[in-house]
């Protein structure tokens, strides 16, 4: 009797890239739900625009590259990039903001480098940074927590000029807590004075702390489900925390508390969902710890002294560049070798 032959191991392989991506998206639900609840429908509309753009752009480039389209779209990586990028955007942005950002992320940062597995930079963050540099105004206008227009008005705002919709965009939007701190510290106010404003909650920025908590819960589930490993989140949060502790102890009037840093901005989203993108991250166990810590430290440096209110995106891209070098110097000791 004749048989077909295959290479070992023969056991059916459990899981797959698509399942991993699905789990990551599931884990995004608590944080995303908090964001929608606090910042409005714009969050979902951004996700929708980004997702549609990502799928279309990915399909187009795959067709041009003559690769399998359906199989690649089904791996979920393009969709995840889109969702992560959309979550970083202000809720009330014009439709072309998520579209341009996603196009850059998918076409340039991902596919031009060879597609899934070959991109040296985190595509979502590359797309976000392009937007941040090109459209700083649109990227810093955030809605005040709880004060957002209805679904239809949000849609209208995405497609038309605010003036024509009759919605007073200025009344809705506000600077983020991190932005406020940066501006006010520049005006020689102390943190005590700044914290008394309505923008601040229990430990972090108001509303932001809840969104961060949501992403923390999702992230812990990812750890438990062994989709991600502990080194990068621990490294990043540890690095951020350590920096914040040092400077907070040094001068609590000028430097925000460690808790504020961990529960504001994109700290948790970055630690569990963005920095953990395996393709562009370091791949050795020790290297991942260093890579994560590097992101945490750079995030703190940019937040505190840089030109932008939050620094996760830049920190991730900078550490992406360092990842191959880190990998080179952190190879684990092989069994039986000295």
């Amino acid at each position, binding site marked *: *009797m*004749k*048989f*077909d*032959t*295959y*290479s*070992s*191991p*023969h*056991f*059916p*392989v*459990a*899981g*797959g*890239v698509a*399942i*991993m991506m699905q789990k990551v998206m599931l884990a995004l639900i608590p944080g995303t739900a908090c964001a929608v609840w606090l910042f409005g429908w714009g969050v979902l509309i951004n996700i929708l625009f980004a997702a549609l753009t990502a799928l279309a752009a990915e399909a187009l480039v795959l067709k041009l590259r003559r690769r*399998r389209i359906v*199989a690649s779209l089904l*791996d979920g*990586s393009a969709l995840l990039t889109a969702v992560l990028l959309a979550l970083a955007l202000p809720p009330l942005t014009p439709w072309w903001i998520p579209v341009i950002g996603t196009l850059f992320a998918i076409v340039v940062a991902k596919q031009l480098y*060879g*597609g*899934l*597995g*070959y991109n040296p930079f985190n595509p979502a963050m590359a797309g976000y940074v392009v937007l941040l540099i090109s459209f700083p105004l649109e990227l810093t206008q955030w809605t005040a927590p709880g004060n957002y227009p209805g679904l239809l008005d949000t849609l209208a705002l995405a497609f038309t000029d605010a003036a024509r919709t009759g919605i007073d965009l200025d009344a809705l939007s506000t600077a983020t807590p991190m932005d406020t701190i940066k501006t006010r510290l520049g005006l020689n106010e102390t943190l005590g004075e700044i914290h008394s404003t309505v923008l601040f909650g229990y430990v972090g920025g108001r509303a932001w702390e809840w969104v961060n908590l949501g992403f923390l819960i999702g992230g812990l589930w990812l750890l438990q489900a062994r989709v991600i*490993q502990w080194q990068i989140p621990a490294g990043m949060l540890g690095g951020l925390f350590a920096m914040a502790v040092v400077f907070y102890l040094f001068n609590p009037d000028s430097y925000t508390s460690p808790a504020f840093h961990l529960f504001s901005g994109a700290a948790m989203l970055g630690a569990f969902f963005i920095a953990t993108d*395996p*393709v562009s*991250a370091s*791949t*050795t*166990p020790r290297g*991942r710890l260093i890579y994560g810590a590097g992101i945490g430290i750079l995030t703190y440096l940019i937040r505190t002294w840089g030109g932008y209110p939050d620094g996760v995106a830049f920190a991730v891209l900078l550490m992406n560049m360092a990842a191959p070098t880190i*990998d080179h110097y952190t*190879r*684990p*000791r*092989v*069994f*039986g*070798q000295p």
Partner: protein
Amino acid sequence: MASVTNTDSGDRGTASRFEHLDRFHGGLVLPGLHEMSTSLPISEAGIPPLLIIPLLQHIGETAECLVKAGEHVHKGQIIAAPKGRVSVPVHASSSGTVVAVEERPFPHPSGLSFPSVIIETDGRDEWDERRYTLPDYRQLSRVRLLDHIRAAGIVGLGGAGFPTQVKLSRDSDDRIELLVINGVECEPYISCDNMLLRERTREVIEGVRILQHILQPRDCVIAVEADMREAEAALRAAADSSINVISVPERYPSGGERQLIKLLTGREVPSQGFPSDMGIICQNVGTSAAVYRAIVRSHPLVSRIVTVTGGGVKQPRNLEVLIGTPFSYAVEASGGYKDDVDRLLMGGPMMGFAVSTDEVPVIKATNCILAVTREEMPPPEPPLPCIRCGKCTEVCPAELLPQQLYWYARSENLDAAQDYSLFDCIECGCCAYVCPSHIPLVQYYRHAKTEVWNNEKQRQASDIARERHRAHQERLERIKRERAERLARKKRAISGKDGARKDAKQAAIQAALDRVKKKKELEGITRRNVDNLTAEQAEKIREVDSRRQHKPPPGEH
């Protein structure tokens, strides 16, 4: 001197020495599936009409065939003699007639054919009368026992097939610290060691005693997997105090030699080294039983226990199978295939390999024939690019970076792959099992290893060629030089003779010239007063002249 004394292990008692197990990095908890084939006792598969006995069933050099077509052979008769140090003889597994010595499909991942002796069995299963019988092994020297182990054709039955005698020989006089008898059947489905331990406990233990006698190890451990409870109990009942029975947790690949030694001793076998470098010898339980049969019962290795199992077999079980029995016959003895059988493997689902035909024979290294259905093991999914998730690193028991190795193996950057310790890969398949991109990683590593070996061979060949060329050039040079020298010598010799001849010639010429000169001088003597000579006077002068002429010239006396 049968058992080992522990007088010099004063630090810790033997019993407590191995109670605390160490850990090894990575590995997998896999579904066992052993119990599928343990419901029936071991039975004999029977004598197949044709035995296909390959001449190479071990690691090392091919044995040299001693029989021709048409020859009658007895069971246990040596049909091929070992060649070189790392080699063992091959025996006829049953009596019958050799019908051919030719290449036949061989159970190997590449599906190659190999020279084999084909025996048409006569069903009488008659043993060779010239069989040796040995006195009590305790009376025999180490060397003689080792010779017998080699003569019995015993190789490691755990799957590697390394000649046992070579493994037991020692170059140095350093004491063997630890003898490990490996019964840790960590690959799913396989149960031949388990059943052997359950049913033939005494054979294994007696074999261990012989090995102890040969090696005189300080300690001896028989290791089994935690789920082999019956086997463990049987061993504990049969083993004396010099043998520690240790149960290790179910974690693939704890039955790997290096992993097991790490578990038991906490020490790592050096990369590219051997357990014997650390004073440890590892033997499979089946090998131990084979040693017992060879030394005590004078049976060479002509059969082994094979697990025939999988969802594609009607009655999964363990069979005692004659070496050379075709897979198809062994499967028939297990009730035959189910209709939906899809894949046939030799070995387990992690490290075993698929064979393309069931006409391949059972060889000494065949521990399992695994016939599975498509539902059990669906064909591999098309691989996606590596996303560097690092799951492979987490499970790699060799503590490698499989994702980096893959990168270099794929790009055929063999130097970098070796720098990332390609050859420390034990091909256990854990990385490929967890890979979310379904990349056949082991296949890449195997390919890279083969490439390195080929390059090495080529390099050696080209080194040899270069060396030959250099020697050839040198020889040419030498010949040329020698010829030139010879020529010069000859010339010199010739010119030496020539010189003598020349001198003689010149002397002759000189002499002639002198003569002429003299003559001329003589002739040149002006005769005076010869104008008016009388006839008488003229006559006198002529006389004198002629006398003078006939006189020999001066110097020619």
